[in-house]
């Protein structure tokens, strides 16, 4: 047991400058490949995607017997016949055709001892590659629990290559495996397996590939005959009992709902205090800079552009970390596949699969961790489709928009005569339902049209139950956070700076003062016009106008008015006026259009922007005072030059529908670009969602107006 505590295999590294021995790690999914990689090489030296494809490239380094060894982790696959992107990349790397990958000196093939027959399929293909091969027999402890014993010496003799049993989490067999790898180049490649195609008597018109597959299994059965022995089992094993409960119609569903509720509440609520902590720190930095720096463009750039952008990035980290913690634990213990199995039927109708469930569920908290979690979907088509519809789930950033508009404009009346069922609650629930229904429709239509292709069979291994490996789980969380920060994060900050510039320039002090003066004059004129009337409505209006004028005399009020004028005169404000004809049919005035454009960095910004445009300065719509002020100002807003209010029930609903369906979230679009490896998909997502949002808002406003009038 002394080998248990060896920190890194072959720590006696003389670190010579010679070219490293390049070793590829090949194996079926769920064979403990990540665990073995971590046990051999520790933290990877390189994680990323192969150029042009969404196949993960992972490399690490260790040394043994004075040799530097470069370990390349290939994607988990069942076959080397290159059909899926994973299989194509694996084969390209093994044949030295993959751009940027070194040629392979030795191949380590993992074989799960609990299901050796199926694992030997890949082994039989690997043996034909004319490379030195070492077979690592993994999960031998689990196999022993199931009464399976394997004569690995005999297997090595029959295959013509070393077969090393390992228990990676316990570090057992790692020394032997590392030795076998280091010595690999001194051995000649094993003989190619003698797969006899003629053995299949009745090919039944199958293709040569199918006949070959059958012949390979025939060969495997011969090789393993006498090597694998199973002791007769008494009754059901613990594993089988767990499985029977967790995939049971009733018990399985109950456990599933409980697990999903835990995951969802964690990322929705438990992440909130940490996120508040992060945004508190960011606010602190912003306030610090605000005080120390002289007023001007630099301060504005740093505070409203850079710090706000960085804040907008780090705020996602708690949710990403928590979701990946759950995903890694669920995947590590084998539940992720069961969850997909339980939910598959529900999603297959709209062209998705059970694997899409957790990413879509997480998207109700935030689409960013949700889209990142689609990495667990092996099928590329399903993954892309899930990514495209995930932003339609109503995320937590939409909630403040819904809540404020509902509170301000939806009357608190009972629905269908039920005193407990109030209209605001129905409206809020409808917004969530709208996202789900539209996502189902979009997924269904896309899967029947542009994603229509040869149907991929849904074949999913349900791996055995095992304890998740803490090192593998932590590595997964670390990698998810790091990849988000390093690749998506920088771009998100850049977008934030661009939007800041558009909202701050052009800045013309003279025309801002002119705007404020004009505003004052308008208020005075209105006040004069009502001075003679003495009914109750006019008195109220007089009071309001007097208050507003008084506010303009204070520093704070004047500053807010200047900020409002600046934002209305900026490029963004001009764009708002420019698009007015487009948003007019939605019942919006140019100010709402402006706020909708300004919310491109993140949806929740729309409320803050409305605050600035309505001369409230920086109000916090999350706080009661701020939200009350904003609601009052919105209720008082009128169409330019008239007394007609802007915000009516149909307008509020049309804004809510727009925000339920639109893609006004730069971070989501950046993450879609990063995860799909192509800028086509963010453009597609933005276009189709904005189109749907506009259409939905149009229908809502026009129908709403018609119904209220009738």
């Amino acid at each position: 047991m002394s080998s248990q505590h060896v920190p890194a295999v072959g720590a006696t590294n003389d670190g010579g400058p010679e070219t490293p021995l390049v070793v590829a790690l090949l194996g079926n999914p769920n064979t403990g490949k990540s665990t073995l990689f971590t046990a051999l090489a520790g933290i990877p030296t390189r994680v990323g995607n192969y150029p042009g494809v969404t196949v993960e490239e992972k490399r690490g380094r260790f040394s043994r017997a004075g040799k530097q060894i470069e370990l390349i982790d290939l994607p988990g696959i069942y076959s080397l016949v290159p059909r899926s992107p994973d299989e194509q990349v694996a084969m390209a790397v093994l044949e030295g055709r993959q751009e940027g990958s070194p040629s392979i000196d030795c191949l380590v093939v993992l074989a799960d001892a609990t299901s050796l027959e199926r694992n030997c399929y890949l082994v039989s293909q690997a043996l034909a590659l004319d490379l030195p091969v070492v077979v690592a027999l993994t999960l031998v402890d689990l196999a022993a629990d199931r009464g399976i014993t394997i004569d690995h010496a005999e297997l090595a003799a029959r295959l013509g290559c070393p077969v090393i049993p390992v228990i990676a989490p316990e570090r057992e067999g790692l020394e032997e495996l590392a030795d076998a790898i280091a010595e690999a180049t001194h051995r000649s490649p094993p003989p190619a397996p003698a797969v006899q195609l003629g053995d299949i008597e009745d090919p039944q018109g199958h293709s040569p590939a199918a006949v070959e597959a059958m012949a390979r299994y025939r060969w495997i059965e011969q090789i393993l005959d006498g090597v694998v022995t199973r002791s007769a089992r008494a009754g059901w094993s613990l594993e089988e009992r767990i499985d029977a409960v967790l995939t049971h119609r009733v018990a399985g569903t109950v456990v599933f709902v409980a697990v999903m509720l835990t995951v969802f509440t964690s990322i929705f609520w438990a992440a909130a205090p940490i996120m508040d902590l992060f945004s508190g720190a960011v606010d602190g930095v912003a306030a610090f800079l605000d005080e120390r720096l002289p007023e001007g463009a630099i301060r504005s750039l740093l505070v409203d552009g850079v710090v706000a952008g960085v804040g907008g990035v780090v705020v996602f980290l708690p949710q990403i970390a928590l979701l990946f913690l759950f995903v890694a634990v669920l995947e590590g213990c084998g539940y992720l596949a069961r969850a997909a199995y339980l939910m598959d039927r529900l999603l297959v109708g709209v062209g998705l699969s059970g694997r899409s469930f957790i990413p879509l569920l997480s998207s109700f908290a935030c689409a960013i961790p949700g889209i990142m979690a689609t990495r667990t979907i092996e099928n590329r088509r399903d993954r892309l489709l899930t990514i495209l519809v995930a932003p339609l789930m109503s995320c937590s950033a939409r909630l403040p928009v819904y809540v404020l508009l509902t509170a301000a404009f939806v009357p608190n009346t009972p629905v269908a005569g039920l005193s407990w069922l109030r209209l605001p609650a129905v409206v809020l629930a409808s917004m969530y339902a709208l996202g789900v229904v539209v996502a189902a429709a979009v997924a269904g239509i896309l899967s029947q049209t542009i994603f229509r292709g040869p149907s991929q069979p849904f074949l999913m291994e349900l791996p055995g139950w095992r304890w998740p490996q803490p090192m593998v789980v932590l590595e997964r969380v670390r990698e998810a956070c790091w990849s988000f920060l390093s690749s998506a994060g920088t771009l998100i900050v850049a977008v934030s700076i661009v939007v800041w510039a558009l909202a701050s320039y052009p800045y013309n002090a003279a025309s801002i003062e002119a705007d404020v003066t004009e505003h004052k004059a308008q208020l005075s004129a209105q006040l004069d016009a009502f001075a003679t009337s003495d009914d109750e409505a006019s008195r109220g209006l007089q009071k309001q106008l007097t208050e507003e004028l008084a506010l303009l005399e204070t520093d704070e009020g004047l500053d807010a008015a200047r900020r409002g004028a600046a934002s209305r005169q900026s490029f963004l404000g001009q764009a708002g006026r420019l698009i007015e004809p487009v948003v007019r049919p939605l019942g919006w005035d140019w100010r709402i259009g402006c706020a909708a454009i300004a919310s491109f960095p993140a949806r929740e910004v729309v409320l803050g922007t409305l605050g600035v445009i309505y001369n409230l300065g920086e109000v916090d719509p999350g706080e009661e005072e701020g939200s009350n002020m904003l609601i009052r100002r919105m209720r008082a807003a009128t169409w330019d030059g008239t007394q007609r209010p802007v915000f009516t029930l149909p307008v509020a609903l049309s804004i809510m529908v727009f925000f339920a369906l639109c893609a006004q979230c730069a971070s989501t679009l950046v993450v879609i670009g990063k995860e799909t490896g192509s800028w086509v998909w963010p453009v597609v997502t933005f276009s189709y969602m904005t189109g749907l949002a506009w259409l939905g808002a149009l229908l809502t406003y026009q129908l709403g107006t018609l119904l209220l009038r009738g």
Partner: protein
Amino acid sequence: MTSLDRVPVGWSARVSRVVGDDPATLRLLEMGLTPGLTLRVVGSAPLGDPIELELRGYRLSIRRREAARIEVEVVEAAQVALAGV
């Protein structure tokens, strides 16, 4: 002779042939569903689809649509009763 999607939960069956000659057929064969193999239908998901199989020492879930392409002969009912689960 019947197809795998019609085999009741708990029963075992021997594969006679996998119908069709496309990538899906090849994938089924690669996963070990070859003619002559005896497998067991372990369960079906709460909504009826997919089904869970036990073969070659592991568990595989496939949709009924794919299972319908696999011609089998029912071998025997499971010796283990599913009572209480």
